[in-house]
């Protein structure tokens, strides 16, 4: 019995163990299997082996489950920010499973814990003022984490530790934006005597803090001193200029004007050798300083180079070139005055070549440039000749525009006034002066054909200045001519000064007369008549009288043909024209024609109204055959149509006798009288 029970127990245990095994409850299954193994007879080898195998599997599976559970717990600890506990679980799990990924987790956790420790150590070091130690620790953290914020911390610690160079090299590679980093970066730069860079960095800090403002001012003063020291070494003037300019512009620091100017020109000297003409142009045009005579050659040569390279700055070239070429007294360009003149001519031609090249390939504005160039060339040439070798006056050899820019126009005018005899005539003298006077701007507009601008820019008052007066008259005359051709109202006012202009410059009178002589259209004739009439009234001259006479007679004929005036006005106008110039054949011929026409019209009117005495008188007294022909033609028509008039013979004879009497009063030998006689004989 006992044996049977024992077998039964073993089977039960094994069944239960298998059941637990199938349900993956390996720990309990293992226990049951172990119980069963104790009960199996030693000779039942196969069963023992089978149970042992199962126990092994259960042990392995149970361990795996335990490891999984440990990993789960480890992750939970990691999530909750408890890396120490997580590490413990991972380590235990690794002890069970020995898997590589668990090992990696353990390594990573160890690294984090290590960094945490270093971060804390770094913070502690920083807090206790051990900045260098802190910087080193931050470097270690950065090596592990590669984060910019760690670099910032390191750089700032380095600044505080006095390791400025290292700090600068770190800041340089970072996008520094917050005030604290900006301040530290600038501070490190300042400590390395890099004041300009420091200020540029600090300019990004928006702070009104008095301590900071004061320190910034200190750095400015340090930069100023540094600039003077570097200037003494006479190198890198470009940087000195930039930094000085920055100081002057940003803080208005005093005592730097000389340094700014000096470094600029010293730099320009370097730039010229490097052929950096654009930069030079930027420097000289961007400069707020006034241009002096001494700068003119530099400006001229720079603009020449630029114009030569790219056809730009032609206007600037025009402004400075002639002045540069003529600046100073003779002999300055070469070894002697004669050679000097040849060199000058050569240089002018070179610049002119550049302008002409542009004119040929460009719009009208370049042509205007050439017009001004030619005008200014004449003017400066005169001044140059006038000054001659007088060193004290050499600074006045200027074109009008530059003279105005230098505020030297009055001095130039005085020079011209004092040397009136130098000029070949009064016109030459006044022309020269006018371009340096208040009328200059208007005159230059006029030269460019900008008549509206010219008239708009005339000075309000001449104040008795002969140059202004002459300039005004020239502009008004030119504007008047422009309007004569293009239309305008009340043009006479622009010619009121013309008589006195013509006295000085007869060429203008000739020009006007020539234009007038070539006018045929009624609207232009009307304008010319008005203008010539004004000039004639103010200052008559033979030429103007003739022109007015011709214009008047042409106008009268055109106006009559256009039915704007009647015969009488025509005749009156023609008589007036003839009175102005008795040699006006146009007026004379037309006046004769007009007289014939007038008598013929009067004759017809008289005949139509049966005013036979008046008709006879007109025909008898007329100098013109055409009038008498009209008279007799009238009676010839009446004779021819007498039969159709329905008269009786008596009435016809009566009428024919009247005809005979009237015709005989005009011409008693006219053939019509014979015909009337024949007709009367036939009736009688």
């Amino acid at each position, binding site marked *: 019995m006992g044996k049977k029970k024992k077998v039964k127990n073993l089977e039960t245990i094994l069944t239960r163990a298998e059941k637990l095994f199938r349900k993956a409850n390996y720990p309990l299954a293992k226990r049951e299997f172990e119980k069963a193994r104790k009960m199996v007879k030693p000779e039942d080898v196969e069963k023992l082996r089978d149970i042992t195998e199962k126990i092994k599997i259960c042990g392995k599976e149970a361990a795996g489950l335990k490891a999984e559970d440990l990993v789960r717990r480890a992750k939970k600890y990691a999530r909750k920010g408890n890396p120490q506990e997580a590490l413990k679980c991972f380590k235990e799990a690794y002890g069970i499973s020995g898997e590589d990924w668990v090992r990696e987790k353990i390594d990573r956790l160890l690294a984090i814990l290590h960094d945490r420790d270093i971060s804390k150590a770094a913070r502690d070091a920083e807090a206790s003022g051990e900045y260098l130690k802190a910087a080193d620790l931050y470097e270690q953290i950065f090596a592990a984490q590669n984060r910019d914020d760690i670099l910032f911390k390191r750089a700032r610690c380095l600044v505080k530790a006095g390791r400025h160079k290292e700090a600068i090299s770190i800041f340089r590679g970072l996008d520094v934006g917050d005030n604290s980093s900006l301040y530290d970066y600038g501070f490190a730069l300042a400590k390395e005597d890099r004041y300009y860079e420091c200020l540029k960095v600090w300019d990004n800090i928006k702070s009104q803090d008095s301590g900071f403002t004061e320190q910034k001012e200190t750095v400015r003063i340090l930069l100023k*001193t540094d600039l*003077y020291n570097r200037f003494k070494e006479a190198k890198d003037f470009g940087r000195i200029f930039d930094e000085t300019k920055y100081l002057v512009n940003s803080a208005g620091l005093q005592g730097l004007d000389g340094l700014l100017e000096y470094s600029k020109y010293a730099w320009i000297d370097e730039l010229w050798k490097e052929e950096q003409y654009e930069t030079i142009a930027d420097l000289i045009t961007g400069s707020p300083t006034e241009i002096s005579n001494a700068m003119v050659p*530099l400006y001229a040569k720079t603009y020449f180079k630029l114009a030569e390279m790219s056809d730009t700055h032609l206007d600037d070239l025009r402004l400075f070139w002639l002045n540069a070429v003529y600046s100073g007294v003779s002999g300055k*360009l*070469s070894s002697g005055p004669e050679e*000097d003149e040849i060199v000058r001519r050569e240089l002018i031609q070179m610049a002119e070549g550049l302008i002409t090249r542009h004119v040929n390939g460009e719009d009208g504005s370049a042509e205007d440039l050439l017009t001004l160039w030619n005008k200014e060339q004449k003017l400066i040439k005169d001044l140059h000749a006038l000054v001659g070798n007088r060193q004290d006056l050499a600074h006045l050899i200027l074109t009008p525009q530059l003279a105005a820019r230098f505020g030297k126009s009055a001095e130039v005018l005085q020079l011209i006034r004092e040397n009136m005899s130098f000029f070949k005539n009064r016109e030459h003298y006044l022309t020269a002066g006018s371009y340096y006077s208040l009328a200059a701007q208007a005159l230059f507009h006029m030269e460019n054909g900008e008549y509206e601008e010219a008239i708009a820019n005339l000075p309000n008052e001449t104040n008795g200045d002969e140059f202004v007066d002459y300039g005004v008259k020239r502009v008004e005359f030119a504007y008047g001519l422009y309007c004569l051709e293009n239309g305008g109202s009340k043009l006479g006012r622009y010619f009121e000064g013309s008589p006195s202009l013509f006295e000085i410059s007869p060429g203008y009178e000739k020009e006007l007369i020539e234009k007038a002589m070539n006018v045929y259209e009624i609207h232009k004739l009307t304008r010319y008549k008005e203008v010539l009439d004004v000039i004639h009234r103010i200052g008559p001259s033979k030429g103007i009288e003739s022109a007015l006479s011709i214009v008047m007679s042409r106008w009268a004929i055109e106006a009559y043909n256009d039915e704007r005036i009647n015969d009488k006005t025509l005749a009156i106008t023609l008589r007036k024209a003839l009175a102005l110039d008795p040699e006006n054949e146009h007026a004379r011929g037309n006046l004769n024609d007009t007289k014939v026409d007038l008598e013929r019209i009067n004759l017809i009117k008289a005949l139509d109204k049966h005013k036979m005495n008046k008709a006879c008188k007109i025909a008898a007294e007329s100098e013109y055959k055409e009038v008498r022909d009209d008279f007799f033609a009238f009676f010839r028509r009446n004779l021819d149509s007498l039969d159709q008039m329905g008269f009786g013979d008596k009435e016809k004879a009566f009428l024919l006798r009247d005809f005979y009497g009237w015709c005989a009063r005009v011409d008693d030998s006219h053939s019509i009288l014979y015909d009337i006689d024949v007709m009367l004989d036939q009736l009688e």
Partner: protein
Amino acid sequence: MNPYKVLNVDCRVAKREIIQAAALALRERKFSGRDVALAQKQLLDPISRATHEFLHFIDVKPLLDKIDLCQQNEQKVADLDHLSVFDEIL
């Protein structure tokens, strides 16, 4: 063409030096023989030389001479001490 550049000489160069410079320039072959010959010719002719001197050289000395470079008395400044004002903001 800048003959001074072609011959690598400055504006004070003597005639003899121009000829020497031309020979050197021909050897160096930086410019064509034609350009070197032209440059030599231009610098040996006084008119042409004066023209090119005007075109290719500037003289800033008159401008520099006019400038008053007196430095004002050096201002004494405080030492640069690190400010903590921006640390507090952080």
